[in-house]
């Protein structure tokens, strides 16, 4: 298998880079989007609660592949409108479309994980916040958020790993990530080992991600 890797070394490394960058950006942007949605889900009051509920269930209810097609091919239907809005550069690019679909999808799952860990904070902590006169913002930023994220880490880690592997779907919309490169190399060589090589790359990426997550979790020894 090493020969297959060496023969196409540049392609594999470029695929690796695309998969890693997609995963990293989708995790980070997804988290930024998920945080307010998760908070709104945890509060579960008023319009924001309804909107967050709608968001989560809309995107959890849609297969990522379907979402991907809707964003990438669907955007073409509106190319004239998107051009006039100055957004066409974004939607004509498969990479951006794929990233957008990943972010919309993972944000729904991450929001639910954040909601669960916020709701799981014992009421004694909220009573301490009240008794110590913390403002709502300070209570959230300094107490509830750090405790919730520490508790959410195992669940978030799971979601990040699923997301990493879900990026392989983007090969279908012409992206040359690891899976895209494997498909290309297979079409050149008809050598099924191309997919084994791709699988090994994913395994290595998952292990690297897991190592990072373990390091972050170990900084929260108090949570034990």
């Amino acid at each position: 298998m090493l020969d297959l890797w060496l023969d196409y070394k540049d392609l594999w490394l470029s695929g690796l880079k695309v998969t890693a960058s997609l995963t990293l950006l989708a995790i980070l942007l997804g988290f930024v989007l998920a945080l307010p949605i998760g908070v709104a889900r945890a509060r579960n009051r008023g319009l924001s609660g309804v909107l967050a509920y709608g968001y989560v269930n809309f995107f959890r209810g849609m297969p990522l592949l379907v979402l991907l097609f809707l964003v990438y091919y669907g955007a073409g239907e509106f190319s004239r409108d998107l051009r006039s809005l100055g957004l066409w550069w974004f939607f004509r690019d498969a990479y951006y479309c794929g990233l957008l679909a990943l972010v919309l999808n993972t944000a729904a799952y991450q929001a639910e994980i954040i909601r669960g860990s916020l709701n799981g904070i014992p009421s004694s902590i909220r009573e301490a916040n009240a008794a110590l006169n913390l403002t709502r913002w300070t209570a959230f930023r300094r107490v509830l958020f750090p405790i919730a994220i520490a508790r959410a880490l195992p669940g978030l880690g799971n979601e990040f790993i699923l997301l990493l592997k879900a990026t392989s779907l983007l090969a279908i919309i012409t992206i040359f990530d690891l899976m895209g490169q494997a498909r290309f190399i297979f079409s050149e060589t008809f050598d099924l080992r191309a997919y084994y090589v791709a699988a090994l790359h994913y395994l290595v990426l998952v292990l690297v991600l897991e190592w990072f997550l373990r390091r972050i979790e170990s900084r929260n020894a108090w949570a034990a």
Partner: protein
Amino acid sequence: MATPLAISIQALDKHYGSFHALKDVTLTVAKGERIVICGPSGSGKSTLIRCINGLEDHQSGSLTVDGVTLTDDAAVLRQVRARAGMVFQHFNLYPHLSVLDNCTLSPTCTLRLDKATARRQAMELLSRVGMADHAGKFPSQLSGGQQQRAAIARSLCMMPDIMLFDEPTSALDPESIGEVLDVMTDLARDGMTMVCVTHEMGFARKAADRIVFMDAGQIVEVNTPETFFAAPETDRARAFINQVIGH
């Protein structure tokens, strides 16, 4: 006009659904006075003390703390909580912060003390409760008694005029109970206005100016410790004391 009263409770009523938790409770606490509230479990002691700083709301009657009458308005609640510090049965320390950070969080964020001042004040209070050596530890690294002493210091860091204790020793082993009661006795000697819900009758006898005995959501008897333990006026209190002291 300034009032010499720290706390004034008038005809307080509280319901949890159909359960009548507090019935027509009237009690005043003078500045500097130490009150121990005792009574059987379910008698409304904790509910009463939690009403005093607005952790529980009430349906009728009035509650005034240092001249501020409680409403459900957030600004009023903040004023009351600034005056009345609370110590909980289960300490309620922040698990993700060191003891020192537990003590400086609200002083820096709420009272807007600068970091150095807040740390100095926290260290003074932590050494007063014998916790200075543990300032860098997380709550999970401490015994129950140590956690409770840290929680008392955290509460004192907010410079309250009144300290409320909600069964502060009920979750502790006998040795830890002693540590915490020593700290509370020291505070009492210092002239802090204190309202303590506790089952520690030794502490009540030693530190209280008055004992409030509650049963079934009502105040049954208010008396000095001497009279309360030697010759209680009500049969209900007598039965309770025989139960508690009897063995």
